[in-house]
C-alpha cells in the first residue's frame, strides 16, 4: 500500500537513471540519513557508540570495499585484513612522519598506499582465478603480517611493536569524544558508499560484473580483463585501506599487527556472504550482523543457560560464536546465496504487490 510506484512517471532519462528511482526509496534514505546524523547522536550512549556504532560504520566501509572485489568482480579475496593493515600503517606513517599532516589527507593517503599494495597482489588475478587466487591473496595477508611485525621502519621504530595516535583533529575540530568519532566515520562512510554505488552502476561496474559472471565471455565481447580486474582490486583495496586506517586511528587508537590478522579477512568475507554478494546495501546488513551477533550471543547464551540452571563460561560462548558463524555461512550459501540483501529486496517486491500476490 505504501510502497507503490503508481503515478510516478518518468519523463526524462535523467529521472529514469537516478540512484533511487522510486520516491519511497528516496524518502527512506533521507530519513535514514536524518536518523543517522541527528537522532542517533541525541539518543545513543557512549557505550553504544564505542561498542556497536563505530565498529559497525568502519566494518561497513570495509565490507563495501570487499564486496566490490568479491561480490561485483568475483575475485575472491582472503587478504582483506592485509589491505586494512597497509591502510592503517601507511596512514600512521604519513601522519607521524610529516609535520602538520591533516588527518583526513593521511587517511586517504593510507587508502592510496593500500591501493598500490592491492594492485601488486592483484596481479596474479590476471593469470589465475578462483581457488588459486584465494591462495594468492592469502600471500598478501601473511606478507603484511610479517612486514609490520618485523620491519621496524613501519612502526616508526617503536620498541613494543605497537603504534598509537593521539590528538586527532579534523578541520580544527577535536575527534576525542565518541560522538565526534561517530559523526566523522558516518560522513566518510556516506560519501564513499555513494561513490561506490555510482561506480558499480556505471560502465566500470558493469565490466566488473561481466568478468564475475563469465570472464572468458566478457573478454570475447571486448572487455579488457586486465583493466577490469585491476581496477576492481584498486578501488576495493583503496576503500578497505581507508577503513583499516579508520579502524586503527578512530576505533583502536593504538594497535599492533594482530589487529589485522587473517581472522579479520575471514570476518570481512563473512560480512559479504551474509549481507549479500554484489550489493552495496548488503555490506551494511552484513557488517551490522557480524558486529551485533557476538554481543547478542554473549548476552543471550548465559541468560538462556541460566533458565536451565547451567553456568556458561566465556570459552563456551566463544566456541558457540564460531559454530553459529560457521553454520550461518553454510546456511546462507545453501538457502540464500545473495544474503540478507536479497531477503530485503524480496520483502520490497512483496510490498509492491500487496495485497495481491501476483
Amino acid at each position, binding site marked *: 500500500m505504501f510502497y507503490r510506484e503508481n503515478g510516478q512517471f518518468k519523463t526524462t532519462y535523467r529521472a529514469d537513471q537516478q540512484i533511487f528511482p522510486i520516491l519511497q526509496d528516496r524518502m527512506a534514505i533521507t530519513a535514514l540519513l536524518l536518523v543517522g546524523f541527528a537522532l542517533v547522536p541525541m539518543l545513543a550512549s557512549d557505550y553504544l557508540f564505542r561498542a556497536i556504532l563505530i565498529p559497525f560504520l568502519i566494518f561497513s566501509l570495509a565490507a563495501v570495499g570487499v564486496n566490490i572485489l568479491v561480490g561485483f568482480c*568475483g575475485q*575472491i579475496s582472503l587478504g582483506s585484513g592485509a589491505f586494512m593493515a597497509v591502510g592503517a600503517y601507511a596512514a600512521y606513517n604519513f601522519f607521524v612522519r610529516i609535520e602538520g599532516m591533516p588527518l583526513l589527507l593521511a587517511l586517504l593517503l593510507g587508502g592510496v598506499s593500500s591501493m598500490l599494495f592491492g594492485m601488486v597482489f592483484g*596481479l*596474479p588475478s590476471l*593469470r*589465475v582465478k*578462483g*581457488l*588459486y587466487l*584465494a*591462495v*594468492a591473496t*592469502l*600471500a598478501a595477508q*601473511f*606478507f603484511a*603480517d*610479517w612486514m609490520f*611485525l*618485523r*620491519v621496524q621502519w613501519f612502526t616508526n621504530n617503536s620498541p613494543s611493536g605497537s603504534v598509537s595516535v593521539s590528538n586527532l583533529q579534523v578541520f580544527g575540530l577535536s575527534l576525542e569524544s565518541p560522538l565526534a568519532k561517530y559523526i566523522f566515520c558516518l560522513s566518510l562512510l556516506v560519501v564513499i558508499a555513494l561513490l561506490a554505488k555510482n561506480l558499480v552502476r556505471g560502465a566500470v561496474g558493469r565490466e566488473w560484473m561481466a568478468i564475475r559472471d*563469465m*570472464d*572468458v*565471455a566478457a573478454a*570475447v565481447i571486448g572487455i579488457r580483463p586486465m583493466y577490469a580486474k585491476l581496477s576492481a582490486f584498486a578501488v576495493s583495496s583503496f576503500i578497505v585501506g581507508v577503513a583499516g586506517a579508520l579502524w586503527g586511528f578512530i576505533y583502536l587508537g593504538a594497535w599492533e599487527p594482530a589487529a589485522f590478522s*587473517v581472522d579479520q579477512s*575471514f570476518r570481512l*568475507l*563473512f560480512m559479504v*556472504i551474509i549481507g549479500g554478494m554484489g550489493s552495496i546495501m548488503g555490506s551494511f546488513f552484513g557488517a551490522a550482523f557480524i558486529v551485533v551477533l557476538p554481543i547478542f550471543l554473549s548476552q543471550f547464551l548465559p541468560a538462556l543457560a541460566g533458565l536451565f540452571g547451567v553456568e556458561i563460561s566465556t*570459552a*563456551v560462548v566463544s*566456541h*558457540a*560464536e*564460531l*559454530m*553459529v*558463524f*560457521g*553454520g*550461518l*555461512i*553454510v546456511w546462507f*550459501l*545453501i538457502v540464500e*546465496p545473495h544474503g540478507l540483501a536479497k531477503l530485503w529486496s524480496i520483502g520490497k517486491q512483496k510490498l509492491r504487490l500487496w495485497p495481491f500476490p501476483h
Partner: protein
Amino acid sequence: MAFFLETLLGGLMAGMLYSLVALGFVLIYKASGVFNFAQGAMVLFAALAMARFAEWIPLHLGIANPIAANVLAFIGAGIVMFVVAWVIERLVLRHLVNQEGTTLLMATLGITYFMEGLGQSIFGSSIYKIDIGMPKDPVMILESSFEGGILINKEDFYAAIIAAALVALLSVFFQKTATGRALRAVADDHQAAQSIGIPLNRIWVIVWCVAGVVALVAGMIWGSKLGVQFSLTTVALRALPVVILGGLTSVPGAIVGGLIIGVGEKLSEVYLGPYVGGGIEIWFAYVLALGFLLIRPQGLFGEKIIDRV
C-alpha cells in the same frame, strides 16, 4: 657442507609432513571439485579427538597398555572422522551440487569455523599431548664423511616414514581397487561416472573419509610434535602453497610440492632470514608459490586449464 645437508634433510622431512596435509586437499579436490579449506580444522578436530580418547580410554575402560590405548584412540578418532564426513556430505555438499568453485570454497570456510567451535566445545580447548611413543632424541649420521656429522631428529625421521607409507598406501588404493577406480572416474567427469552407475554421494562420503583419515594421521604426527592445540589449524594454511605449487589435482604434485616448500622454507630461513629480520618462513612459501603461479598457473603437475564459453 654438513650444515647445508642438515638443513636440507630437515627441510625434506618437514616437507613430507606438509605433503601429508596437502594430500588431504588434493584428494577432496580431485574427487569432488571442492577446495577444502576445512582441512586444517579437520586436522585439529581429529587430533583433539585422538588426544582426548587416549586420555579417556585408560581412565574409563581400564586399558592401561599405552599402545593399545593409542590404537583404540586412533580407531575411535577414525570413526569420528567418518561421522564428520558423512554429516558434511549430507548437510552441506548434497545441497551445493553444481555450484561454482568459489561458493564451495566459502562453504568449507563455514565448515572450518563450525568444526573449530564444535571440536573445542566437545574436547576442550587447552593444550593436549599425543604420545605415540616416538623417540625424540636426535642422532648423528655420516660422521665419517663429514666433520661433525649430520644431526637428524629421530622423530622427524619416523614421521616422514609414516607419511611416505600413507602416501604409498593411498596410491595403491587409488590405482588398484575398484573403489579407487570409481573415485578416479568421478574425478574425471561427474556426470559420466553417474551415468554408468557410480553412486556420487557414496563416493563423496568415501573421499571425505579418506581425507579425514589423512587429517587424523597428520594431526597425530603434528600433535605429538607440537602438542594438540588451536595452532594446528595454521599447519593447514602452511600447506596451501604446497598444493598450489604441485597442482590441485595431482597426488605426486602434493608430495613433490611439499618437499620443495619444506626445503625452500628451511633454506630461506637459514640463509636469507638473517638479512631481513627472520621469521620469513611464514610467507616465503606463499611468495614462492605466487611467483610460480605467474609462470605456470596450473602448478607443477596440474592439468592444463582450458576455458570455454
